[in-house]
């Protein structure tokens, strides 16, 4: 095999995608330069522990690093940390950094992730937090040590995970959720009650169909006012109301953005030689045909591996069933696929399992609580497009 001059690859963003693309490129024999550009000062780190083990103190900040110092050297990767990408000039094939430096590339991977959504009604007081970056997590961990009352706005996964850690430290916890049940967007209208029950068992209150109308406090947060007029005292407030893809810096670049960078099933964007993966991107799933932005660790990992494959001449496509997990109170919740219009729940010896089906009587999702083996089986059944009746038989046998 003759080797033309090896192209240079630049990854913008310093998370799971960056680390995985770099590692995979080398494993697949890519010999050209690989540069990671990130606005964060830390080398690429893993985010799932930020709302779980790092807060609980069972994992250190160093342990979240995805590439160990020796590995960065061994792989021959250049890290440009602490400076954001401010613009992209695709005709010149250059990334323009916030400090004016231009980084040329032959192939580019956009992996700038997403940021925590802000609520205009929440002022920046001491004790008010969002959780996205390592620094957010260590700041919350520090304040948890002396906190007495935590209020979480939004019963999403990050908020519920932080609620669980806080309860385990005997902090009074109330989660305020506008929808009628937690995680309605992810789990449909019914299954979220599993979480309400789980948190109630551990002494955390999830108040659904309730909205925070005002955050009170002068220097530090003192409480939140609810739409019913009640004042909930709080010395720590976490806002966990979703994430927004970091695409603003791509304005004018010609890269198509529509709730995330639009990608085909190989990760290629509307501009040749420019790829994207992870939270910032919206890929076409080759098996479902759907164009989806998936804010999940597993999808980011898979997409990064597929982009590395494409960058080295492969033609793999993303066709897997999305999957994610959440750890709350020593219990693992796992969902593969998606919630659907019909569902069936069964209490297995290990924990609840919920099947989701579509209108065509096919299994489209499986939720398990404390039953990872069932999840693994379920994910294969979803991938195979299993008929609802057959899925029910499987559920009955668990």
């Amino acid at each position: 095999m003759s080797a033309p001059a090896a192209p240079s690859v630049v990854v913008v963003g310093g998370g799971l995608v960056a680390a995985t693309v770099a590692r995979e490129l080398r494993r697949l024999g890519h010999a050209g330069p690989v540069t990671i550009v990130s606005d964060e000062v830390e080398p690429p780190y893993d985010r799932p522990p930020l709302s779980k083990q790092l807060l609980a103190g069972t994992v250190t900040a160093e342990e979240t690093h995805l590439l160990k110092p020796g590995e960065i050297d061994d792989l021959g990767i250049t890290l440009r940390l602490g400076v954001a990408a401010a613009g992209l000039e695709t005709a010149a094939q250059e990334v323009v950094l916030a400090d004016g430096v231009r980084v040329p590339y032959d192939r580019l991977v956009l992996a700038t992730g997403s940021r925590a959504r802000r609520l205009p009604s929440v002022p920046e007081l001491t004790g008010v937090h969002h959780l996205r970056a390592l620094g957010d997590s260590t700041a919350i961990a520090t304040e948890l040590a002396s906190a007495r009352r935590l209020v979480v706005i939004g019963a999403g996964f990050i908020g519920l995970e932080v609620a669980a850690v806080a309860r385990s430290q005997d902090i009074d916890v109330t989660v305020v959720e506008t929808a009628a049940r937690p995680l309605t967007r992810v789990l449909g209208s019914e299954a979220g009650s599993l979480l309400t029950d789980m948190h109630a068992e551990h002494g955390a209150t999830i108040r659904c169909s309730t909205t925070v109308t005002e955050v009170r406090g002068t220097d530090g947060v003192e409480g939140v006012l609810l739409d019913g007029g009640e004042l909930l005292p709080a010395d720590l407030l976490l806002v966990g109301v979703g994430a927004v893809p970091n695409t603003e810096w791509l304005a004018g670049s010609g890269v198509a953005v529509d709730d995330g960078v639009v990608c085909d099933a190989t990760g290629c964007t509307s501009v040749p030689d420019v790829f994207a993966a992870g939270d910032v991107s919206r890929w076409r799933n080759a098996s479902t045909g759907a164009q989806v932005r998936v804010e999940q660790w597993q999808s980011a990992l898979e997409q990064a591996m597929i982009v590395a494959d494409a960058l080295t001449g492969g033609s793999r496509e993303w066709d897997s069933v999305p999957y994610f997990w959440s750890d709350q109170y020593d219990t693992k919740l796992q969902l593969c696929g998606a919630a659907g219009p019909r569902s069936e729940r069964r209490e297995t010896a290990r924990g609840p399992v919920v099947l989701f089906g579509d209108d065509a009587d096919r299994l489209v999702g499986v939720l398990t609580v404390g039953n990872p083996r069932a999840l693994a089986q379920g994910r294969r059944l979803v991938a195979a497009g299993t008929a609802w009746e057959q899925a029910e038989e499987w559920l009955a046998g668990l």
Partner: protein
Amino acid sequence: MKVSVDQTVCREYANCIVEAPDVFDLDEENGKVIALITEPDPSQYDEVRAAAASCPVKAITLHE
């Protein structure tokens, strides 16, 4: 290729048994990862690599 697993770091994500169900399983007793095969067939290498990569806590080590 040789496969080794570390039950002390396994946190039962079960990603490995999704990727390579013939190579990995979870122990019935403690729920931790076990390798059903420690020297997989070359035809299984891709799925074993995917399994190792998809482990969030890197409980699977491949010796290639």
